[in-house]
């Protein structure tokens, strides 16, 4: 474990999502919560004791993969936002400060949050739809740490977490699916209720039940207790496979029907992305999804799905700022800089309809 003097290394994280060609399954995140026995959970733990947790965990880290420690108080707000974007975190880590820390491995795939709500929050992102092997990776790190640490556990509630809905396995798996054909074709609601499975919950990126920013549907396990890890992965795998099949069929149908409504939406997305003077992040996420759809249906050319998937990350605020020479921009300048950045990435795009 190294402790860098210059925390701006955050911006140099490897990009595990850089070569993502998957047209539907954008990414998955797996998170595993653990607390140490004999310590109160972070909310009821004084700063000094929290620092002890950090050094205890640091001492017992596996050598492979090698982790780098970043202390909460040493990271700028921009760096924390960057981390949240990079790891597709659902919770905010903006407030992370003294007594809180992050461990990141060299591949940029694994983040361990220390004392963020729980003593240990192991978090992994992956882009190949390989949730089973991602779980093995996560379990290996957890196992290596447990060699010298003992986790808070009780036979009825399993592994204990500060949020009771996460206790048991402590495992939360989320698949990020981009479903433009089902969403813009209007059949998503019907399909979701047809496939409904009580062990699965679906939601949108921003939590708003009616607007799916980026055409993203987040599919995750509803239960962490009363099921085992294999149940969680297999029901998620089952649901995602079915939903993907529905999206593929819907895309094919759009293409054969030459659906004018969706065609218009793709053409508008093209116009907005190529010609706007200002662009907001949420808007961009959805336009990217429509461009990806257009690309797959042969309505656009001049770029690839992985360019667009990369743009998905790089047009979010902290990633955008990090690419600018001047890292501090006025809030009002950001939408314009974002538009400029996107124009430069979409130079060769052509609309064929």
């Amino acid at each position: 474990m190294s402790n860098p003097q210059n925390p701006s290394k955050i911006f140099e994280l490897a990009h595990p999502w850089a070569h993502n060609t998957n047209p539907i399954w954008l990414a998955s995140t797996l998170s595993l919560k653990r607390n140490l026995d004999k310590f109160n959970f972070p909310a009821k733990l004084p700063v000094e004791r929290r620092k002890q947790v950090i050094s205890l965990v640091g001492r017992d880290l596996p050598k492979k993969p090698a982790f780098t420690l970043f202390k909460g108080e040493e990271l700028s707000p921009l760096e924390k936002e960057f981390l949240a974007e990079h790891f597709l975190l659902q919770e905010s880590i903006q407030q992370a400060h003294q007594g809180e820390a992050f461990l990141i491995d060299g591949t940029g795939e694994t983040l361990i949050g220390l004392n963020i709500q729980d003593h240990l929050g192991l978090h992994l992102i992956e882009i190949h739809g390989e949730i089973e092997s991602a779980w093995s990776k996560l379990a290996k790190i957890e196992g290596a740490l447990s060699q010298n640490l003992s986790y808070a556990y009780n036979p009825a509630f399993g592994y204990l977490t500060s949020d009771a809905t996460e206790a048991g396995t402590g495992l939360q798996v989320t698949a990020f699916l981009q479903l433009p054909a089902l969403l813009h074709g209007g059949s998503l609601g019907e399909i979701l209720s047809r496939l409904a499975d009580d062990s699965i919950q679906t939601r949108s990126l921003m939590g708003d039940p009616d607007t799916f920013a980026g055409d993203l549907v987040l599919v995750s396990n509803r239960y962490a207790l009363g099921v085992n890890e294999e149940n969680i992965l297999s029901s998620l795998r089952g649901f995602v496979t079915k939903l993907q099949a529905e999206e593929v069929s819907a895309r094919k149908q759009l293409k054969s029907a030459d659906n004018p409504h969706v065609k218009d939406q793709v053409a508008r997305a093209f116009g907005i992305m190529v010609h706007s003077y200002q662009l907001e992040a949420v808007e961009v996420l959805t336009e990217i999804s429509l461009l990806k759809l257009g690309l797959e249906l042969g309505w656009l050319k001049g770029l690839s799905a992985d360019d667009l998937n990369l743009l998905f990350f790089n047009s979010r605020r902290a990633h955008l700022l990090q690419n600018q020479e001047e890292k501090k921009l006025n809030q009002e300048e950001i939408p314009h800089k974002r538009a400029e950045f996107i124009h430069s990435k979409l130079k060769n795009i052509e609309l064929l309809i």
Partner: protein
Amino acid sequence: MNEKHPSKFPERPLDCLECKKPIVVVYTEIVGGVVNEVSMCADCPELRRRLYGGGGVGDEMMVVGSSGGVACGNCGTTLGAVRMGARLGCSVCYEVFADFLMGELLSSGRLPERLKGAKKSTPIHIGRSPGEVQQEINPALRLLALNDALSETLKREDYEQAAQLRDQIRALTEETETKGEQPPKSK
């Protein structure tokens, strides 16, 4: 009840029939002219419910009166705070607020159906436990998922998509078979 001095302990409350713990409390309740006696173990949730007015496990809705300021003796987190959605403060909270937490998980749909109204002896946590050797996930799970999706697709009569799924199933089956013959390659 007519017997003033029962030769043995009175019966446990109905909710506790499965309880195997030793009886240490005889609870006597006098409502109007009726005297009611039941036996309970030391940490009977039913006892706590009757004393402090909290709800028991398995209640569809938690009916909780004044909680009498129940708090975790270790970290000071109060039941009131937990009920307001505060995070738990330590492992002991899970013992102190066990009934409340279980009730909440059930009523908010965060526990599988099989545990609704299940017997007390039914194990709740069935995931890994400390010291358990990590198991690789069975690759057959993926085949099951694909097969399920295949039958859904056939129901919709999307034969093109069904063919693609069949290809995936075939590829995965072959991969598993070759893996079975040779030691798996490390990635």
